[in-house]
C-alpha cells in the first residue's frame, strides 16, 4: 500500500512537471486561434524562448533576466508571424513552419558561436536558475501518513512555473469569457466582419492576441531551459509545442478542457517510463513507442470526427480582407 501510494505521488509529480510547459503553450495557442490566426509555431517559440532564457541567465547569472529574455524573444517571433500573416495576409501555416525551422537552426548556431559548447548553453546554477519552492512545514509533515506525503511531495516542492501554469488556466478562462477583450477576441475569430462593422480593428485584435501568445510561450520555454533543466540543449522542446497544439484541439479551444488534455498527455509520458517492460495481464508488454505516440494518435482520431466534432473558430486560418 505504501509502495503504491508512493508510486501515485511520484507519477502525479512527474505529470505536473511535464504538463507545465504544455499548459502554457496550449493556452498561448488558444489566444491565437481564438482570434482567427493559426499558429503552428508554438514549438519554435518554446525552443526560442528556452535558448534566449538560458543564454541570458548564463551570462548574467540572473534567472529573472533570463525569463525576461525568453519572453522577449518569444514575443518577437510572434510579431514576425503577425507581420507576415495579419498585416501582409501571408499564409499562416507556411509562416509557422518557417519560424519553427528558423529557430531550430538559429538556437544551436548562436549557442555554438557564443559558448563553444557544441550547440548548447553553459549550465546555470544558483541565482541563474529557478529552484523548486518548498512550502512551509513541508519537511515537518513529510512523515505524516498520506496527507503529509501529499503535501510535501505533491503540493510543495514544485518549481514556481508549475503553480503559474495552473493559475494561468482560470485567468485565461476569466479573460476570454468575462472581459470586454475576451468578447472581442472570440468575435474576431468567429466573424471578423461583425467586428469590423462595429468599429473595432480586426488586425489590432489579432496582434494583441499574438502578443499574449508570445508571452505565454516565453514563460513555457524559460521553464524548459532554466527551471526544469539547467541549460539549453539542441531541440530540447522535442515536439512539445505540437503536443500542446494537439491538446488545444483536443480541448476544443476551451481553457479547462485544454488543461485536462495537457494533463492527460503528460500522464501518458510520466507513465511510460514505469510501464516499460511491465507485463499487463491480457495485453502483454506495451511498446514504449506506442505510449509516446498516444497524444498524436488521439488527436488524429478526434480530427477525424470520431470523438465528437472539433470545430475551430470559424475564421481560423483566413486572412481578413475587407470585401467591396
Amino acid at each position, binding site marked *: 500500500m505504501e509502495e503504491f501510494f508512493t508510486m501515485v505521488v511520484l507519477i502525479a509529480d512527474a505529470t505536473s512537471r511535464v504538463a507545465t510547459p504544455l499548459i502554457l503553450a496550449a493556452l498561448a495557442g488558444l489566444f491565437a486561434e481564438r482570434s482567427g490566426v493559426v499558429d503552428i509555431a508554438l514549438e519554435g517559440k518554446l525552443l526560442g524562448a528556452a535558448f534566449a532564457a538560458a543564454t541570458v541567465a548564463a551570462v548574467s547569472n540572473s534567472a529573472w533576466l533570463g525569463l525576461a529574455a525568453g519572453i522577449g524573444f518569444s514575443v518577437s517571433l510572434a510579431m514576425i508571424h503577425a507581420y507576415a500573416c495579419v498585416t501582409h495576409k501571408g499564409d499562416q501555416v507556411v509562416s509557422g513552419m518557417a519560424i519553427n525551422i528558423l529557430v531550430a537552426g538559429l538556437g544551436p548556431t548562436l549557442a555554438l558561436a557564443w559558448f563553444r559548447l557544441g550547440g548548447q548553453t553553459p549550465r546555470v546554477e544558483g541565482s541563474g536558475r529557478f529552484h523548486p519552492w518548498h512550502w512551509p512545514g513541508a519537511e515537518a509533515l513529510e512523515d505524516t501518513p498520506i496527507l503529509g506525503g501529499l503535501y510535501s511531495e505533491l503540493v510543495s516542492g514544485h518549481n514556481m512555473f508549475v503553480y503559474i501554469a495552473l493559475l494561468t488556466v482560470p485567468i485565461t478562462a476569466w479573460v476570454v*469569457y*468575462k*472581459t*470586454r*477583450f*475576451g*468578447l*472581442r477576441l*472570440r*468575435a474576431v475569430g*468567429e*466573424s471578423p*466582419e*461583425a*467586428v469590423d*462593422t*462595429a*468599429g*473595432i480593428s480586426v488586425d489590432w485584435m489579432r496582434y494583441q492576441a499574438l502578443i499574449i501568445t508570445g508571452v505565454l510561450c516565453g514563460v513555457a520555454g524559460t521553464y524548459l531551459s532554466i527551471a526544469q533543466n539547467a541549460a539549453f540543449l539542441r531541440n530540447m522542446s522535442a515536439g512539445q509545442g505540437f503536443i500542446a497544439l494537439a491538446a488545444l484541439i483536443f480541448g476544443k479551444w476551451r481553457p479547462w478542457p485544454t488543461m485536462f488534455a495537457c494533463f492527460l498527455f503528460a500522464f501518458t509520458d510520466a507513465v511510460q517510463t514505469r510501464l516499460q517492460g511491465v507485463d499487463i495481464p491480457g495485453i502483454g508488454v506495451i511498446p514504449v513507442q506506442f505510449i509516446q505516440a498516444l497524444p498524436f494518435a488521439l488527436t488524429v482520431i478526434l480530427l477525424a470526427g470520431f470523438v465528437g466534432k472539433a470545430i475551430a473558430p*470559424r475564421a481560423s486560418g483566413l486572412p481578413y480582407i475587407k470585401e467591396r
Partner: protein
Amino acid sequence: MTTSETAPPAPSSDAPPALELSGIDKWFGPVHANDHISFAVPKGSIHGIIGENGAGKSTLMSIVYGYYQADAGDILVGGKPVKITGPQNALSHGIGMVHQHFMLVEPFTVLENVILGAESGRLLAPSLEKARAELERLERDYSLEVDPDATIESLQVGLRQRVEILKALYRGADILILDEPTGVLTPQEVDQLFDILRALRDQGKTIILITHKLREIMALTDNVTVMRQGAVVANVKTAETSREQLAELMVGRSVLLRVDKTPAIPGAEVLALDNVSVKDGQGVRRVKGVSFDVRAGEILGIAGVSGNGQSELLEALAGIRPIESGTIRFKGTEIDATRMRDAREMRQMGLGHVPEDRQRMGLVVSFLANESSILGHHHDPKYTGKFLMRQKAIVEDVAEKMDRFDVRPSNPLLRTSSFSGGNQQKIVLVREMDQHPDLLLVGQPTRGVDIGAIEFIHKRLIAMRDEGKAVLLVSVELDEIMSLADRIIVMFDGNIVGELTQEEADERKLGLMMAGEQLGTAA
C-alpha cells in the same frame, strides 16, 4: 425627367429633413455608380428607394453609412452638413445600417452581439447587465421581442434581423437604413417586420428602405425615390403614384437592341419541370414549386431581379445543386435530381451550361486560355488520348474556336485573366455551344460585356435556336430577354408570376411582374 418628378417632396413641417443628399457623385473606375443624386428624407417617415440591379442604390447607401466616400456632393443630417468617415462616425450622427447579410457572431447570444463594440467598461458582467435593461426597454418600445440570452445560431432569420435592428437602435440610431431586408424572410416574417418599421416611424425614427419590390414600397413607404442606372429618375409621394408608374420608371424606355429573327418553330419538349423546389446552401428555400417546359427550337427567357431564385434554379438544372422536391424531365427521361449529380453526366446527356459567374465557376482565371477552353470537356477523345493530352490538337482547336467567335487576342496561350470580360464570355460560350448540346443553359450572358460582343453573342444564341436546339436564358437585363426570348417567364421570390410570349411582352408588364405583381391584379 420633369422637375415635378425629381424635386424632393415639400416637407410637411418646418423641421429640416432627417437626411438630405445633394449632388452625390461616385465613380468606380469607368462605371458611374452614382450620378449627382439629390433627394431629402423627412424626419419620422419611411422612405423607399427602388431600382433594378446596378441602379446604384447599395452604393449610395454605403456612402451614407460611411463605408465609401463620395467623389462629390454633400450629406446633410438634420439640416447640417456632415462628413461621414466610417460606420462608427455615421452612428455618431445617428445613422445606422441594417445589412442585407447579417453581421452577427453566431455562437454569441443576442445580448453579446448587441454590446459588441459598444461595451461599457473592461468587465463584461456590468456591461451585460446595463445592456440588458436597455435592450428590454428597446424591445418593449418598438415591439422587437427577442430572447436576449438566445444564441444567434438558434434564431430564425426573421429574429436575427431584429437583432441587427436592435444593434443600431442600441447605439442611438435615429435614421435606420435597411438594404433589401425581406429577401430571406417568410411572408409572415415580412408582415412582422413591416409592423416593427411602422412602430419605429411612429416613435419618431426615420427609415430608409432599399428594395426592388413594389409591394413593399406601396405598402410601407411615405415617399419613394426611383433610381435607374446610377441616377435619380423620380422623387414622389407614395400616395400620389401607382405601381405601374413606378414600374415604368424603374425599368425605363431604353433603346432595344432587337435582333432580327424569324419566328420560332418549337419542336419536341426537351426539358420539363414539375413543382420543383430548391434550397440554397443555408437551407433557405429559394425556388418554390416552379413548373415550366422548354422546347427544341425555342429560347425560353427567365426574367427577374437577381436573388429571386434564378441562380439556384440554374445550378439545380446543371447538376451542381440537388433539388428539394419535384421532378425534372430531360429529353423525355426523368432525372433523379434530389441527389448531388455529376455535372459531367449532364453534359454527356446533351446539356451545356454557361454559368452566371464566369470567373467564379465558368473559367479558371489562373489557367491559360486553352486550358479554360476545355474545362468540363477534358475527357473528350479529341483533346486527350489514353494517357497524354493532345496539346497540339487542343491549341489548334481552341485557336480555331477563338477565330470563329472573334475572341481577341486570338491567342490560346495567354492567361485567361488577361482577356476582357466579353472575350472571356465568348470563350465559355464557344466551349459550351460547340458540343452541340440539346439544351443550353445560359446565365447573364452579357454581364460585363462590351456592345460589340453582346451583339455577337445574341446572334449566336439565335443561331443555336434556329438549328433546332433549346435555350434556357436567365438574365436580369430586360432588353436582352425581350429581344432574344420567344417566351418569357418571370421569377419573383422563388415563384413564377407570369408567362408572356415575345409579342405580348413589354416593359410595363414585365416591370410589374419583376417587382412582384401578378398579371391581372388590380392597380
